[in-house]
């Protein structure tokens, strides 16, 4: 009992100065590394930064007390950590010397981070194989684009509408999970993804293989997202609009994921991942929780799809193939199932790496395939393994 109170109080202590220092230092180092990585042209510099990342990662593996120390600092000084992170995200475009390609990479990485978080609800939390996240992403993009082009509905209304439609499809896709499991369910999701792709490719009203063009840029309070941001003599390229928009979406995704993970729902998902039959015998309605995981995945993916459509202003079925779904799955597996930070790191790494190593971008898909196999064989828990939940200060 005494030991227990000591443990609990240890978690409740106020942050010390060194906690603050650790948080500030790690966030700054992360941001600076990311900046150099984004602006690096020379493959040697890219390789060097990657090497640094690997070394840092290896050190954390060996000195798990350091990892614990950093994690502890972040949980004690969580306000500072979040505040500083927001500030860094806000200021980051200023540090890119107006490089629009770097901004573009960041936007795509953030959208993939959202998709990976979405898939993580299923693959990571509940162990449901879903090969159709790319299809939900596409449904979101197409629904909002069609609304904007044909009905002149603006982005801010198209966004929730697309999410509702995609969620409905998500429910539909989740229904077979009542009767089928594992391999069979995987086949159903693959089939769903292929069917959606083929339909988009064949219907006239979706523009067939040519897709949809001329999706109008969103605007907010009279500021068009197609024009650059001018603020007190600072000028940011128009991509910055979408950078901030997708950053907000990542924020929403992280908050939703954390809230669900730290609730009765996240626990129920984890239970059915560990042992579905035992979960049923704890009073968990496994069918409902499976369908729910499909719906949440589709909802978030549709958000990402909408932003993508309005950002690029042109979409075609080939943006939403089976391979997109597999790419998202790779990000979750590499990053670490059921670990939100890990999944985001996975998304950033796997979006930027092939772009940065141009010589090898032809081999991107081959690379993804091999990376998944190697990770599943050597480190199935991913770069950042899931952590046990902690309940602080309750007793």
């Amino acid at each position, binding site marked *: 009992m005494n030991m227990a109170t000591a443990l609990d109080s240890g978690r409740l202590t106020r942050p010390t100065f060194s906690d603050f220092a650790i948080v500030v230092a790690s966030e700054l180092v992360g941001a600076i590394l990311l900046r150099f990585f984004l602006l690096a042209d020379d493959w040697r510099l890219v390789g060097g930064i990657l090497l640094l990342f690997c070394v840092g990662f290896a050190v954390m593996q060996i000195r798990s007390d350091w990892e614990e120390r950093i994690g502890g600092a972040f949980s004690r000084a969580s306000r500072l950590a979040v505040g500083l992170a927001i500030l860094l995200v806000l200021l980051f475009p200023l540090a890119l010397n107006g490089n629009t390609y770097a901004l573009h990479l960041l936007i795509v990485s953030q959208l993939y981070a959202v998709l990976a978080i979405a898939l993580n609800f299923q693959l990571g939390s509940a162990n449901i194989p879903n090969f159709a996240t790319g299809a939900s992403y596409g449904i979101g993009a197409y629904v909002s684009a069609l609304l904007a082009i044909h009905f002149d509905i603006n982005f801010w209304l198209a966004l929730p509408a697309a999410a509702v439609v995609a969620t409905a499809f998500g429910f539909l896709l989740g229904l077979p999970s009542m009767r089928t499991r594992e391999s069979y369910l995987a086949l159903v999701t693959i089939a769903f993804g292929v069917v959606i792709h083929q339909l988009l490719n064949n219907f006239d009203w979706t523009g067939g293989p040519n897709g949809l063009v001329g999706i109008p840029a969103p605007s907010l309070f009279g500021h068009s997202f197609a024009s650059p941001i001018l603020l007190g003599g600072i000028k940011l390229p128009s991509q910055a609009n979408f950078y901030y928009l997708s950053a907000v979406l990542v924020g929403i995704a992280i908050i939703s994921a954390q809230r*669900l993970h730290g609730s009765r729902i996240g626990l129920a998902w984890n239970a059915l991942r560990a042992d579905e039959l035992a979960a049923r015998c704890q009073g968990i309605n496994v069918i409902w929780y499976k369908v729910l995981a499909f719906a949440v995945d589709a909802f978030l993916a549709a958000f990402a799809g909408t932003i993508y459509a309005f950002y690029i202003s042109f979409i075609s079925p080939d943006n939403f193939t089976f391979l997109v779904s597999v790419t998202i799955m790779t990000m979750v597996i590499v990053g670490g199932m059921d670990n939100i930070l890990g999944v985001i790191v996975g998304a950033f790494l796997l979006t930027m790496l092939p772009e940065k190593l141009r010589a090898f971008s032809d081999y991107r898909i081959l690379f993804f395939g091999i990376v998944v196999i190697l990770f599943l064989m050597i480190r199935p828990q991913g770069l950042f393994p899931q952590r046990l939940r902690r309940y602080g200060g309750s007793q």
Partner: protein
Amino acid sequence: MSGHAVLRGEGLTIRFGGLVAMDDVDFVLEAGEILGVIGPNGAGKSTLFNLITGLYRPSAGKVFLNDRPLNGLPAHRIVQMGVSRTFQSSRLFADLSVLDNVIIGMHSRTHSGVFDALLRPSKARGELQQAAAKAGDLLRSVSASLYDQRERAASELAQADRRRLEIARALAAEPKVLLLDEPSSGMDDRDTDALIADIRGITARRPELSIMIIEHDMRLVAELPHRVMVIEYGRKIAEGSFQDIRNMPRVQEAYLGRKAAAHA
């Protein structure tokens, strides 16, 4: 024992293809009673539990909980109505903490939904914190050593502690009826003694709780249950106090084989 039937089975029968795994079994479990279920391996004891808890659908027959029929209800509804169980081969949520295992056991007694979790996080978190506190108390009441290990992964527990955790998880659903499927399997004598003491402690604190217990360890069967029923080849062949049961020739045959029983 207050004398009224909490759980009642009538003519329970299940066939898998041509195999009759359970044939016309009746049983009654009274409030506060401990009913032992014994029989040779493969006799259908676990099948009986699977029928009660809704994992299998009976081909014929009915189960009532306080006179309300359980037939056709999905497994998770039956837990909600007050029947919890453990498994013969322990089925813990291995990669979750001991505390989380118990909190998940409270699933049917907590209520936050998706929208609570997303839009009213303080309510959802508050409920979970409360559940964590209750789970801690429950763990402490079952076993102090288990409580001290509450933040470890369930997979790291020793065999005896796993059994205890399974019982704690089942109790977390606040059941009226607890079904224990061979709780002593894989335990040595010392652990079994501790288990008997644990179960005694549980029933002392919850006098209304009724327990059905499948066992092979005759020491436990002699000490704990008020009544024992014997199952062989999916049929109930005897029922009564342990003293009466163990002298019945039919039971001895079932356990020892006909010839050995004749010599005994």
